[in-house]
């Protein structure tokens, strides 16, 4: 810890409790930051690609999850190091923006930092490095756009979309069923997509999980599935031509928010109150019934008496429907959410083809399916699997696939995977580097090397010789002027990714490169770390 002294040799205290702070400066700080970030990237790099491995994560409470999804891994690792945390956020912002490629972005950032480290050792100023990276990034992005292709998502029963979904699912534990799951994801997205506006409201796709069966039993339900059953065991299990009354008020005597006391001072009062109380329930049920509803879904609970009155009036009802489900049902069936019984009108009811109860396994668990909704076609993907861990991982994988499909609907430009796009960009960046006359040249060249690191890592994970296969792919790209040559991860006998039909969205690739560059620049700008010394 450096100290400043005044003319009389007394030390200045610059930072409060300076002695108790941990401080790193200059090159030491750069290196420490880069190494920490690299450690995270290294953990993730073996998860990249179709033959990537999974990570097993044990939470503080001892719960186990096994996943291949970059964002989930870094989130559950509970990283403490401040710079490494930046990479966690990087992965998460890719997840939030694009939904896929969360591993790739971290690995790329790791490769860039690795290059930066050697440049620092050469004595190049960090800012020069980050400037160079910035310029190289622009070149790469531009090149990505030129090599991207527009695909017809409609053609051949949306074959392109299915392929893209398969690419996203290929690296996951469910990859065996990627075709089936891909189709499910595509159908789900297309069902709810607004093709005119090229937008997809992902809220309309509900992913429900249920252990049991196997991943093959995963189904698409063209309706909403809610994990609830009818409030009274003797209510009908199926309602056809349902008119749904969506309530956010409980079937209970009113509870005004203001504090109040009702004082009973005589027997008459007591009787009156009793009658009134009875009347409440009758009125409530009557209001619902009179509106023409034939099923009531309520966010709150029911009193026993009200519950029975509902049964007696042949009005099946469901209680404790969660808030998000209520909103989803409202969107899908066109129901208005009704906060007070007095405001129920026939127009506010939602309509659906049928509402029925379905049962799973031996443990007597039931769920409700609302099908053929009036407004939008909200869909549910019901994921099954042999254990909770499989089901959870399948859920994350399907989410990734859905995001990819949505991105393609938004922007139907694709680049080819298998490291081919990165390789093509690397070649372009390398060419550009030679045109730059300043120190940045080195940084730009290093950027190209870092981009090559992705196919390198892919080949490594697939058990191929990374250096040979990357060199081969690169020279073929140059000779044939074909930016689609990549790494043959699945050993299908061709390195042309167009033939292998490995599609990735342009937006995801672009975002990956941009985000990774940004974070690296940010890390390179830190030259002083002050942290409370907790060791």
């Amino acid at each position, binding site marked *: 810890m450096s100290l400043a002294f005044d003319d009389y040799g007394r030390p200045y205290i610059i930072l409060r409790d300076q002695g108790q702070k941990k401080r790193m400066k200059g090159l030491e700080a750069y290196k420490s930051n880069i190494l920490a970030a690299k450690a995270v990237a290294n953990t993730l790099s073996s998860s990249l690609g179709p033959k990537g491995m999974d990570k097993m994560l044990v939470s503080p409470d001892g719960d186990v999850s096994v996943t291949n999804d970059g964002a989930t891994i870094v989130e559950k690792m509970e990283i403490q190091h401040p710079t490494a945390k930046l990479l966690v956020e990087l992965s998460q912002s890719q997840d939030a923006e694009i939904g896929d490629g969360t591993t790739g972005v971290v690995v790329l950032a790791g490769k860039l930092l690795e290059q930066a480290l050697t440049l620092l050792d050469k004595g190049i100023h960090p800012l020069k490095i980050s400037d160079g990276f910035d310029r190289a990034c622009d070149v790469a992005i531009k090149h990505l756009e030129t090599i991207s292709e527009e695909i017809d998502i409609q053609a051949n029963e949306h074959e392109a979309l299915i392929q893209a979904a398969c690419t996203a699912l290929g690296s996951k534990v469910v990859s065996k069923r990627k075709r089936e799951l891909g189709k499910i994801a595509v159908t789900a997205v297309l069902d709810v997509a607004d093709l005119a506006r090229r937008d997809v409201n992902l809220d309309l796709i509900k992913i429900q999980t249920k252990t049991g069966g196997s991943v093959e039993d995963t189904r698409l339900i063209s309706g909403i599935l809610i994990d609830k059953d009818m409030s009274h065991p003797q209510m009908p299990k199926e309602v056809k031509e349902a008119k749904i009354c969506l309530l956010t008020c409980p079937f209970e005597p009113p509870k005004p928010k203001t504090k109040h006391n009702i004082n009973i*001072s005589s027997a008459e009062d007591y009787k009156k109150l009793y009658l009134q109380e009875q009347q409440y329930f009758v009125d409530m049920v009557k209001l619902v019934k009179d509106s023409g509803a034939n099923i009531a879904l309520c966010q709150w609970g029911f009193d026993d008496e009200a519950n029975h009155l509902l049964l007696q009036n042949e009005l099946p009802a469901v209680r404790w429907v969660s808030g998000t489900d209520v909103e989803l049902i409202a969107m899908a069936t066109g129901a208005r959410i009704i906060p007070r019984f007095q405001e129920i009108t026939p127009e506010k009811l939602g309509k659906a083809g049928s509402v029925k109860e379905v049962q799973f396994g031996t443990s007597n668990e039931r769920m409700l399916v609302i099908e053929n909704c009036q407004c939008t076609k909200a869909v549910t993907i019901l994921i099954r699997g042999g254990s909770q861990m499989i089901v959870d991982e399948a859920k994350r994988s399907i989410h990734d696939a859905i995001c990819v499909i949505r991105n393609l609907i938004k922007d139907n430009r694709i680049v080819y995977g298998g490291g081919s796009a990165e390789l093509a960009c690397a070649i372009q960046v390398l060419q550009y580097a030679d045109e730059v006359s300043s120190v940045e040249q080195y940084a730009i060249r290093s950027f190209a090397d870092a981009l090559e690191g992705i196919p390198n890592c892919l080949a490594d994970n697939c058990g191929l010789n990374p250096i040979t296969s990357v060199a081969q792919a690169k020279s073929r790209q140059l000779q044939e002027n074909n930016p689609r040559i990549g790494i043959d991860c699945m050993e299908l006998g061709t390195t042309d990714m167009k033939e292998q039909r490995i599609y990735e969205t342009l937006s995801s690739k672009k975002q990956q490169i941009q985000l990774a560059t940004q974070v690296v620049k940010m890390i390179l700008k830190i030259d002083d770390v002050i942290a409370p010394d907790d060791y």
Partner: protein
Amino acid sequence: MDIVGNVLPQVLKDEATEDKGEMARLQSFVGAIAVADLVKTTLGPKGMDKILKPTGPGQEMTHITVTNDGATILKSMYVENPAAKILIEISKTQDEEVGDGTTTVAVLAGELLREGEKLIQKRIHPQHVIAGWRIARDVALKRLRDISSENDINSQEFHDDLVKIARTTLSSKLITSDRDYFADLCVKAVLRLKGSSNLDYIQIIKLPGGTIRDSYLDDGFILKKQITIGCKRRIENAKILVANTAMDYDKIKIYGTKVKVNSMDKVAEIEAAEKEKMKHKVDKILKYQPTVFVNRQLIYNYPEQLLADSGITVIEHADFEGMERVAAATGAEILSTFDAPERSAQVLGHCDLIEEIMIGEEKMIKFSGCKKNEACTIVLRGASTHILDEVDRSIHDALCVLITTVKNKRVVWGGGNSEMQMAAACEEEAKKVQGKQAFAIEAFARALRQIPTIICDNGGYDSAELIQNFKVELQKGNQSCGLNMTDGTIGNMSELGVKECLRVKEQALMAASEAAELIMRVDDIVKCAPRKRERA
């Protein structure tokens, strides 16, 4: 420190650990195999039981469980190893989904991983192993479905199949000597459900005393409650009103109500009003003209007396499940309000006879000749609560399997036949597949064959010889051969009548291979710092 000598900064929290590559894999293999080894001695008709003793302070220490049921054993174990947790998880899922084969699934996953470990040592990449396993699983599944047979649900053959399946399931349990008796009992109970799969409607009452043989299926429905004192003990042609309503004192449900009076008279008045209110309610109930009144909640003396005076038999405090079952059996509607006596015929349940009976030391109420007759009761007797609990679990397994069979209808031969057939299919496939995957397919076959091997070993037979003879017998084209565990020979399963439910085998195969794949794919284990708990 890394290779170059840079000091690596600490990235994870204190106390968090990260294992990579070989270390991670080793950890998961060891954990998973340990769990599988633990339960494998319970497998098969000659499998042994385990005693589970809870840890923790107090009385619980004395409450032990003796069981043969894989899911129960695994559920009660506390394990640290994450891979072991995955195995426990699949066993639980198996229990929820099909109810039986909970040991098989854990053992199969463990054996797969044991074979997988050998392959890894041979320097075969996990992804290649997985690729091979996937091929093998499909082949095995196809063979399993091919060898299954289906009978018409109403035929005598199907009924026989059910009995055989129940016998097979029960043969590995404590009650193996009485399995014929119990198999018959379970099949009858399941057939009474008439295709519904709601296990709740089969009530199991456990009463210590007597011998296991004294257990029986009651054709009526038994409620473990007593008829209130002062009421008739035997009602013929009963009209039953099933209610869920407060019969203690009807508290005012409107929020914030308080009784404030300024004189003693008023208190008396209100008390009278309260009483009147209850009287009013009872009157309303009486309008339905029931002869029996069953309530979920407590009934205070006053309304009880009113009801008894009107000659109504009162049963109070029936628990929720009991009520649902009474309602299902007698066809009653569960009432909470009593304002529509005109619907009386519709809402009242009916049964020919209600009487109080004594089983062992306890008084129960028996409803016989019920209108709908969907619910039924199995009364279990036995020397101790431990035995009863285990019999209960065994019966539960058998019932689950039977219900699954009724739904799925397809059956396969037992006695290791299906596993051997699947293994044979995998080996045939392995000969056709090019590349390293073939090793993994062979490994899959070996793992499958481990199941009958373990069953043999548990029986104390020479597994190496038996399994080889088994293989030869299958090769000869004897499709229904299997292990005869009473003689220690290869027998004919159709003669011995050993059948199993296809769905159970399917689920076990799928879940085990999925779990093994999941564990195999892991190359890195990150354990977060355990949450600090405040000691109370």
